[in-house]
């Protein structure tokens, strides 16, 4: 055939075929999407520190293991209260002339998704210790350590943020461990990662492929695994052995709050966080952030009261429910 023996015609055809398809499935949809999508009106503006922190995040290739997208499938509910929508990414533009837009959606979830990590893990102290060496707080973690974002100092200067890392992780170095600006900026960025609620009245996209609901009504509380909920929500600070980390996170083993009778305080701490003791870091509002139900909180409490040598008596879901309604009123606005 003449066409096949003429290199100009042949290669021109192949090129335009490919370029045409490219236009249809890539260029036009991309142009269209960057035009029609607008950021959510109530989206928070990133602080300067957080913006710098994002650069640190990009430079160290964190996206290799951490996604930032809550897919509209039921299994992704863990990572956010609603599926991510186009508007969530609409405000992200080119980083600068040299570097492309960083939506940081990612394609690998070797580590947890970070879309809503600002709500899930808002503790600065935890984040700093975790950055210095993740295994200091999460024994099984395989995340790289970032010790070069910290320095040791003999004398604290004004504004130095001291990081309380247990001694065995310091490698025998002397002095106080202080976070360098990039560590603080990176943590500021992580703290800024919060899902913006959709404006009132706009339809929330659904999570697809729903898990089969366990037969509820009453039996649910019994089937809930307190240990698993503890692992998912509490263990990163208070540790699997309930002993916490000295200087950073208080122990639950033998804790008067856990084993005592003041259930109201206990529920309040889980729901709204705690900052009463200077020697430990601030506890975030874990219960509220993770939307824990009364049944789940009951399961956690009963797990904590009966583990690591604790042996306080079981609490009932009804009591917890009552107290939750009570302390929600007291929650800091």
């Amino acid at each position, binding site marked *: 055939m003449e066409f096949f023996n003429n290199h100009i015609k042949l290669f021109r055809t192949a*090129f335009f075929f490919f370029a045409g398809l490219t236009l249809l499935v*890539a260029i036009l949809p991309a142009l269209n999407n*960057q035009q029609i*999508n607008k950021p959510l009106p109530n989206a928070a503006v990133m602080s300067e520190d957080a913006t710098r922190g994002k650069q640190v995040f990009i430079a160290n290739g964190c996206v290799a293991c951490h996604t930032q*997208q809550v897919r509209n499938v039921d299994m992704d509910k863990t990572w956010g209260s609603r599926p991510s929508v186009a508007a969530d990414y609409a405000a992200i533009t080119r980083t600068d002339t040299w570097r492309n837009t960083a*939506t940081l959606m*990612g394609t690998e979830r070797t580590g947890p998704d970070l879309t809503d990590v600002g709500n899930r893990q808002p503790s600065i102290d935890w984040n700093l210790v975790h950055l210095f060496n993740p295994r200091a707080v999460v024994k099984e973690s395989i995340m790289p350590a970032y010790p070069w974002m910290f320095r040791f100092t003999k004398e604290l200067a004004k504004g130095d943020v001291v990081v309380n890392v247990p001694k065995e992780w310091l490698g025998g170095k002397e002095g106080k461990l202080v976070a360098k600006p990039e560590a603080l900026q990176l943590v500021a960025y992580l703290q800024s990662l919060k899902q913006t609620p959709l404006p009132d009245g706009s339809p929330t996209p659904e999570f697809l492929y729903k898990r089969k609901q366990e037969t509820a009504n009453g039996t649910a509380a019994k089937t809930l695994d307190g240990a698993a909920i503890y692992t998912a929500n509490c263990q990163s600070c208070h540790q699997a052995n309930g002993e916490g980390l000295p200087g950073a996170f208080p122990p639950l083993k033998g804790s008067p709050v856990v084993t005592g009778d003041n259930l109201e305080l206990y529920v309040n701490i889980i729901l709204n966080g705690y900052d009463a003791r200077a020697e430990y870091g601030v506890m975030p509002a874990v219960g509220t952030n993770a939307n824990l139900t009364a049944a789940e909180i009951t399961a956690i409490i009963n797990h904590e009261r009966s583990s690591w040598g604790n042996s306080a008596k079981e609490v009932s879901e009804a009591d917890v429910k009552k107290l939750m309604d009570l302390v929600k009123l007291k929650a800091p606005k």
Partner: protein
Amino acid sequence: MLKRGMYTRVKAMLVAACFFPLWAHAQQGGSVGKPGTALLFVLLAVLVAVLLAAFFLSVSVSNLVEKRRGRTAGSQKQQLQDYLTNFNSQQLRKLLHIAGEKRKGGQKRVTGLVILFLGTLHSNPLLAQAADTKTNLFSETGIIITITLILVPILAAIGIMIVKLSAMLRRQRNREELDEAEQLAAYLATLTDEQALQELAKRKEALDYQLTHTELSGQQMSADNKGLISNVNTRSSLPFVSPKKRALKRPNIDPQLSRLILWYMGCAAFWLLFGTTIGEYLGIKFVSPDADHISWLSFGRLRPVHTNAVFWGWASLGMLGLGYYIVPMVSNTPLASIKKGWYALWLINAAVVLGTICLMAGINNGGGEYREYIWPVMLLFGLGLVLTLINFLQTIARRKTKEIYISNWYMVSAIMFALTITAVAYIPTWQNGLGETIIQGYYMHQGVGMWFMLFTLGIVYYMLPQQLNQPIYSYSLGILAFWTQILFYTLIGTHHFVFSSIPWWLQTVAIVGSMGMVIPVVAGTTNFIMTFKGAWHKVAGSYTLPFFLVGIIFYCTGSLQGTAEAFRSTNLIWHFTDFTVAHSHLTMYGIICFFLWAGMYAVLPRLTGREAPQVTVGAHFWLALIGLLFYTIPLMIGSTLRGQMWIEGKPFIETVVHMAPYWLWRAIGGSLMWLSHIFFAWNFYKMISKPETADIKELALQQLEVQTEATIH
């Protein structure tokens, strides 16, 4: 009577063989209660196996019976005579000898034959043992283990029973044959007739006739006047590995071009070693995350160093090197410009060096996979491709053949498409918000499919027929695969973002396109496999063809796996897990690398006249293949389980702990792959370096020349 009794016994055993498992089933069925479907399958399979065995035995028995009946009915004499006509020369010699002895008067008895058959059959104790199997199946737990424990002795008993029964039948058959032999001997003893013996002697003479082997050639000595036989190895020793066919000495190609190609491949080999050393280290970091605490070597920075070095350094330069060989070759004309080839090599190498340094220093493009080099760096790569494209097109325009061989379609298009996607992805003025994601999906998958895959297919369309020494099976299939690859592959990029916030219709288009990819993949695979038709025997004798074969197998399986991964249902389980990593290694390594190695082992000896030691080529092949399987299979299993744990809502950290053993396997597989690259580098060195031991013939000629020169002057 004895025989009759035995048949009855065999039949009884057969009946037992049929019913015993049924009885066993009844036992299990009653106690297990509701076994899972898998269990039912196993039991069904056992039943089928037993029935098959029973059928086989009953057929053997009836054959035996049939034979016996036929013998008693048919004319026995005729059969004995048939035996006689079928005697061979040696047997005839013996017979005649015996007959001669007999005629001399010596009455010698034909050796008596002993029947060894014992008649009685050992009872099968194992059968009884199996029946005794104490099975406490009433507990709910450990059902599978219990069933297995029951099945093992039952199956063993059945096996042994079958062996015993067939041995019995064999003995019976032997016995009948001995009977027959006895009769034949008796018949032969009666042969004393002079005329008959002469007949036999004549027959023997006829059988003994042999050609002199000089009927066709005559008495003259043969001579190899056309030089058809060469390189005969007269000093061979017992080989350590099976020796493969050596590369044929080809007419020399332009030494300038040869040098250029060698440099392309040498740089490629360097980037392979460099890139996979990084990859190996990254694999180790999964197992030992505190291996180092240096910012330049942290995981997030090194990962793109690995992927980009093996993409743009190793695979791209390797492909282009082979391209510089193939394009002028199939165009039957010299390369348009060797200079441009050198510039392109410099530019691409510079891109990879600069890109690597940037990434390690923390300067990257923002996290899109394979798009981590910033645009000024990628611009160098792009310029290298532009020069190559011009060079190849000019060469093809000056071709001395009428047609454009299909290899050139694939390779030139691959360069055009790679330039297109690079331009689309890197023009630094657009892609805000989701625009970036859509382009990212397009870019990363076109990079793989339209650059690496398309170019490599072009290489295969030339190198495979060349190595098999027969034409490609179907040119039309190649053309079909070419156009359908463009049509479907271009669509599938966004299947990396299924369930993300990019438009649903775009995700669906990508999934449909992924299904369409079955067409070019099946067309290509069929074409390559059918090219082997009638030449399969060459695989065992070649050290390049196994590389091609592995590449073809992974081309089919790896690409179809990609289709399977694209569906929404499979995305639920596999997306975000290491399954993707396993898949990309199955394809980029299993397909692209194996094809490139195949091509290099084929081309390099043609350029330098030197071959790699076959032992180390074999070591390279097997380590790479086994390493790849160790790397990918555990990773696929582990990540499937991890996906399921995510669906079940297990705490995330549990799924990290779950992956640990699979990551260890990945590191082990990766180490084997890395070791194979050391062998490859060594082989490459051997193919380009001067041989250590001088060619004795060459040396002798040189000395002679020197001597003659001395005598003349």
